[in-house]
């Protein structure tokens, strides 16, 4: 188990190194080829020449780009150098400094990550809850009405891009009630949910936060649920078809006990694996959903920083997203070993 873990960790570090190397390859030689100055792009238009000069120093633009990659790794390990501290007025952190936001990139990324985490976790509860509950119910009575209804529902969603789902929800659930008109019909208006925007989570009053996230949660969940429902149903059907289920019946267990204690435990690992892979990718930025609903998460930070060619922020976000993917994949491997004794003792 320990050897297995070490191997996986070494692999994860290798992947992250390759990933950041390619990011630097895209940004530094790439922008140079386009004749653009990363220092100027990294700062605001109104920035003083002094700030631009600082940015140039910070990014090490007087050196070849491999040097910049080297300082990135060094900063990651040792923290920002005195020079970097000086030009960023002490704000720089291990991921660098965002001149546009006047914040350490690590700080910026973590605060945005909290937003994305809330979005993805909430949606995950919805789609996993639906998929597990109805997947089991559908598998217990294949071709029964639950199965048919769920298949039609999820089938209709398959292949619909998440942003179209999002816009549809916004139109029907937020816009139509607020304006009180739909296809020329008029009725009393009432504000159900806000159209766009985000409100930070306050534990004393979580409602504004939830209110802004309800539609994004549903949209993301609807985009994800088809696959999970189908997988859950298929895995559950195949588990229910196994010999050990017959053994459980022979013991006198009822169908509910059989489904929950015996079949579900065997059907869950593939779903968990899939979830792990998706979870990593989604945490790295639900760019489309965040764009539709105007949520300031990691994805929209990545999108705006790349669109603005804000190199220090963009490289930091991509690094962070990459780390998330590998770490979550690593966690899935461990979880897999915990869920399935055959893997654990392999």
């Amino acid at each position: 188990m320990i050897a297995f873990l070490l191997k996986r960790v070494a692999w994860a570090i290798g992947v992250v190194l390759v990933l950041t190397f390619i990011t630097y390859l895209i940004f530094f030689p790439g922008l140079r080829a386009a004749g653009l100055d990363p220092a100027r792009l990294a700062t605001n238009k109104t920035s003083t020449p002094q700030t631009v000069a600082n940015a140039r120093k910070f990014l090490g633009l007087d050196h070849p780009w491999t040097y910049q990659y080297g300082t990135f790794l060094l900063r990651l390990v040792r923290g920002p150098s005195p020079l970097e501290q000086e030009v960023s007025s002490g704000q720089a952190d291990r991921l660098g400094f965002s001149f546009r936001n006047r914040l350490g990139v690590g700080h910026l990324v973590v605060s945005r990550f909290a937003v994305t985490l809330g979005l993805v976790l909430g949606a995950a509860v919805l789609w996993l809850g639906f998929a597990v509950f109805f997947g089991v119910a559908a598998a217990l009575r294949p071709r029964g009405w639950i199965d048919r209804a769920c298949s039609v529902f999820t089938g209709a969603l398959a292949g619909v891009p998440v942003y179209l789902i999002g816009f549809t929800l916004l139109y029907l659930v937020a816009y139509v009630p607020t304006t009180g008109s739909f296809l020329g019909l008029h009725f009393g208006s009432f504000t159900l949910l806000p159209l766009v925007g985000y409100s930070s989570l306050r534990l004393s009053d979580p409602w504004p936060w939830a209110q802004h996230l309800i539609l994004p949660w549903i949209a993301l969940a609807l985009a994800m649920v088809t696959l999970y429902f189908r997988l859950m149903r298929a895995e559950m059907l195949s588990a229910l078809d196994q010999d050990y289920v017959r053994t459980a019946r022979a013991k006198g267990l009822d169908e509910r006990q059989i489904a929950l204690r015996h079949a579900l435990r065997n059907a869950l690992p593939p779903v968990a694996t899939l979830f792990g892979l998706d979870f990593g990718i989604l945490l790295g930025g639900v760019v489309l959903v965040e764009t539709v609903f105007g949520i300031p998460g990691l994805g929209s930070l990545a999108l705006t920083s790349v669109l603005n060619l804000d190199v220090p922020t963009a490289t930091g976000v991509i690094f962070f997203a990459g780390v998330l993917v590998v770490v979550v994949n690593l966690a899935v491997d461990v979880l897999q070993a915990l869920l399935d004794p055959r893997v654990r003792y392999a």
Partner: protein
Amino acid sequence: MSSLRRKEREVAAGDADADVLGAMAGALTGGEVSGADATTASWRDVRTRFARDRVGVGALVLLGAIVRFCLAAPLFAALTGHAVNLQDYNALSADGRPLGPFSSGYLLGTDSNGRDLLVRLAYGGRVSLAIATTATLATLFVGVTLGMLAGYARGWLDTIVSRVIEVTMAFPFLLFAIALSIVGQHVFPSTFASAAIIVVIITTFSWFYPARIVRAQVLSLREREFIQAARMLGLPSRTIVAQHVLPHVLPNVLVLGSYLVGINIGVEAALSFLGVGLPTGTPSWGTMIQSASSVYLTSPWLMIAPGAMLVATTLATNVLGSSLNDAIERR
């Protein structure tokens, strides 16, 4: 939103016993992969079986209709007298808003710039389909070539290909796509270059799906008697691969290709929607959705039209892919 990855798993989950789908699931989980072996079933049989599949034929008809609609774009322009980029400010309502569907002379209405939505939908479809098809062909070419090389040559070549696949699969696809696209557009600023960049991005992040499937199939084919016999006869590897391996691999590639076209249309649309794909002036279903997103509350048809085309095309290619798979697999 690695839509390709999602797709693979989706189809694998939907139809667990289908061969290519199983192979795709295997490609995802890293398990052993097996592929359908369709040379035993002749292409005529495949066609007969496919013709009996009403849903599959329906999907093919739908796809054919969509393609014809897009090819007929100049015809729509000629019939309506509205060029694709003709901005007619008379084709807006009195308060300067786009015309709704079934307005006089504009079957689907106009967009915010007074352009005929119907004409743009057809022209946009040409762009979307062209990018998706090119990207699919490029993906299959790269993937099949590398997959066959890795599977047939084995050894260090196989190791390198497999490692590269593993690393690529661990990439946050969309973020890289955004970065590559934006920087690429700054280096090569032209509409054509934007389209080419999208093709390159899609290929970079999807070639490993055909590669994995083909590699696994070639690895197992390699051990089969007829290949062994061909090697014993001293046929050069190139001949064996071209004449004995490739025909066995092609059916799966065809099925995967069908799925990929739908997926790639989605990727182009997603990138364009985010504003990192094609320039907004160029009509494509993605850019049309993008420009509609600022006015969709008051003029929803501007989003519904390209959205419906997008969903219909994706649906048709999905169903077509799964029907082809069933037909090849001989149930």
